[in-house]
């Protein structure tokens, strides 16, 4: 499980990095799906099987398939790739990369100076999560359902005129 955590974490970071370098939308999506699946393995190695399954089903399954549908609808031409490639020049990415490296360095420094606490071994099963979700967090579930309804109405309103 420890080896699975480190290997999957490395794959997640590497595949997320490769998404930035991609200009082809479908290739970027496939790398994103790879990243999400490896994060699911990280969840499983951390003892969160329900969340790992949800990551595969909802994130990698539903949300990314929605992106693939949009790529199919848009029918992107090769010229858009050229525009993207023109933006991937060093003068474009040096500033953001330096700032992000400073951010990562600070976060790693702060976290590494703390005392080493190891994660507890016991897995938290679906039953515990469900009891917490429909017990103290019931109001949150209702709010999430209202949010999803608002998202549905908003997506319908935005997409109604776009495709005619």
């Amino acid at each position, binding site marked *: 499980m420890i080896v699975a955590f480190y290997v999957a974490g490395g794959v997640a970071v590497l595949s997320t990095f490769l998404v930035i370098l991609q200009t082809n939308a479908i290739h970027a999506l496939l790398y994103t799906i790879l990243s999400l699946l490896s994060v699911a393995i990280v969840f499983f190695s951390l003892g969160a099987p329900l*969340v790992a399954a949800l990551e595969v089903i909802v994130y990698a399954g539903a949300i990314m398939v929605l992106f693939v549908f949009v790529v199919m609808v848009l029918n992107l031409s090769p010229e858009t790739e050229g525009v993207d490639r023109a933006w991937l020049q060093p003068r474009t990415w040096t500033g953001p990369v330096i700032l992000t490296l400073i951010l990562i360095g600070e976060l790693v420094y702060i976290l590494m100076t703390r005392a080493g606490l*190891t994660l507890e071994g016991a897995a938290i099963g679906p039953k515990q999560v469900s009891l917490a979700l429909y017990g103290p967090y019931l109001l949150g579930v209702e709010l*999430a359902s209202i949010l999803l309804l608002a998202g549905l109405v908003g997506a319908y309103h935005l997409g109604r005129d776009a495709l005619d």
Partner: protein
Amino acid sequence: MAEIPTQYGIILAAILFSLGIAGILIRRNIFFILIFVEVMLNAAGLAFVVAAARWGQADGQVMFIFILATAAAEVAIGLGLLLRLHHLFKTLNVDQASDLRG
């Protein structure tokens, strides 16, 4: 199965989040920006799950489920906006949609 230091999990979440920020800052394609927003939400969820594993409580996983619902709603609206942008400007470059510039 234990013996994974807590800060390594948080550091993984921080690196993924920073990669998402870097991607949003570098790319000007709204399609890629939406992908990186997903990556950042996923990294925030990873931090919650690491905290849940640290304390042995289910609350962090409940928060991840809420983040999942938020990401689903966000991507529905975001892809709707993407289709509108493509319909109006025939491009996915967000710099083209600069009508509000003074």
